[in-house]
């Protein structure tokens, strides 16, 4: 498993004010698998993703990325794992406007100590893989939304990343461009053995995933996909 989440619980606040964002969620993602997480707003989708990526600390449970339990690692070790193994894609791209596409993509590698020439080489390869190498020296402001999201995906897959976490990656894109992004994520998982988790409210986009899990009030209440267990899961959680 590239990602193995066990009994993940995240509570914000204490006592009567406590908000239970996640309550005992199990989720495993195999290499090459793309899993979509759906659910109404406030159901815990984004919290699940931030915990999976080591950006948030769970209240209880385990988060194993490539076999390493993020909840027991030191802060520095989590940061290093995040830089090397985990890629993020956000709705608003989060590109740095003062850097070119290639520089944006190379940044996480450089932060991790890769020499800039080597980092640039990796970055151009990643841009090539998402089909926009010709935009390497362009700045984000001179690109369309779809192109920017491709740059963000290139940044998320550059180097040897094994886990791709995407939070509403198509939210700011029109439907055709959004679909092209999904196709790209799908191909990355299929061809490069990357595990992907995609948070989306769009059923059409979720349908590109191997598995779709459904969260409600911090609990997994359903699953659709090749495992014909949707009903069993529903029973268990009730």
């Amino acid at each position, binding site marked *: 498993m590239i990602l193995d989440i066990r009994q993940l619980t995240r509570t914000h606040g204490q006592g009567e004010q406590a908000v239970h964002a996640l309550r005992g969620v199990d989720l495993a993602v195999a290499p090459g698998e793309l899993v979509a997480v*759906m659910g*109404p707003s406030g159901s815990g989708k984004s919290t699940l993703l931030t915990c999976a990526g080591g950006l948030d600390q769970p209240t209880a449970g385990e988060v194993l990325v490539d076999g390493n339990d993020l909840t027991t690692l030191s802060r520095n070790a989590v940061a290093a794992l995040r830089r090397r193994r985990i890629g993020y894609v956000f709705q608003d791209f989060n590109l740095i406007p003062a850097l070119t596409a290639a520089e944006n993509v190379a940044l996480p590698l450089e932060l991790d100590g890769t020499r800039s020439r080597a980092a640039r080489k990796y970055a151009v390869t990643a841009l090539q893989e998402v089909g926009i190498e010709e935009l390497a020296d362009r700045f984000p402001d001179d690109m369309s939304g779809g192109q920017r999201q491709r740059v963000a995906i290139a940044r998320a897959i550059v180097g040897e990343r094994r886990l791709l976490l995407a939070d509403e990656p198509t939210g700011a894109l029109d439907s055709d461009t959004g679909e092209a992004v999904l*196709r790209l994520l*799908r191909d990355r998982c299929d061809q490069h053995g990357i595990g992907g988790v995609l948070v989306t409210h769009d*059923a*059409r986009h*979720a*349908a*590109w*995933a191997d598995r*779709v899990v*459904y969260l*409600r009030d911090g609990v997994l*209440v*359903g*699953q*659709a*996909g090749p495992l014909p267990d*949707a*009903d069993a899961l*529903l029973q268990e959680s*009730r």
Partner: protein
Amino acid sequence: MSIKHGLLALLQDNPKYGYQLRGEFEAATGATWPLNIGQVYTTLTRLERDGLVRAASSEGDGRSMYEITDAGRDELAKWFQTPVARESRPRDELAIKLALALAVPGVDVSAVVQRQRMSTMQSLQELTRQKRNSAEGEISWQLVIESMIFGAEAEIRWLDHCEAMLLRHRGKPRPAPQRYDVPDEQETHS
């Protein structure tokens, strides 16, 4: 729609045999609507009776090739010009099921919604897989798949909407179910 108009459309460019029509119909609709050869010939016979097609020539084994008539072309043009009425579609079993689930005591409506959602999601995944595997040029087929994809998506959105409505109404007293008392029972009440 009817098979009738489908066959007229396929006959528009040149005359065809029944088995050809069947093959082309399935190719165009991605076999979402399988036809058996009997249906094709029954329909052709009816179209011939109504003067919309005529038998053009026969193969050695007696099978006829059909061609469209001018009346057939008019009928086809009219079909393409007329929008499909929503009422002509079959009644929606799911809407009726949910309405009944709400009306009948003892049914966990949100479980019904959730189960349906995952089932529809599974169909949507399957359709997306088929779309992904379809070849670049298969425009007719892609269009049919897209129609089914949008349909499944709409159903899921509608289910989300139902769920939100249920939540909003949770806790409000349910209207007392109407009773259909037998007369003598009513007497004991009064």
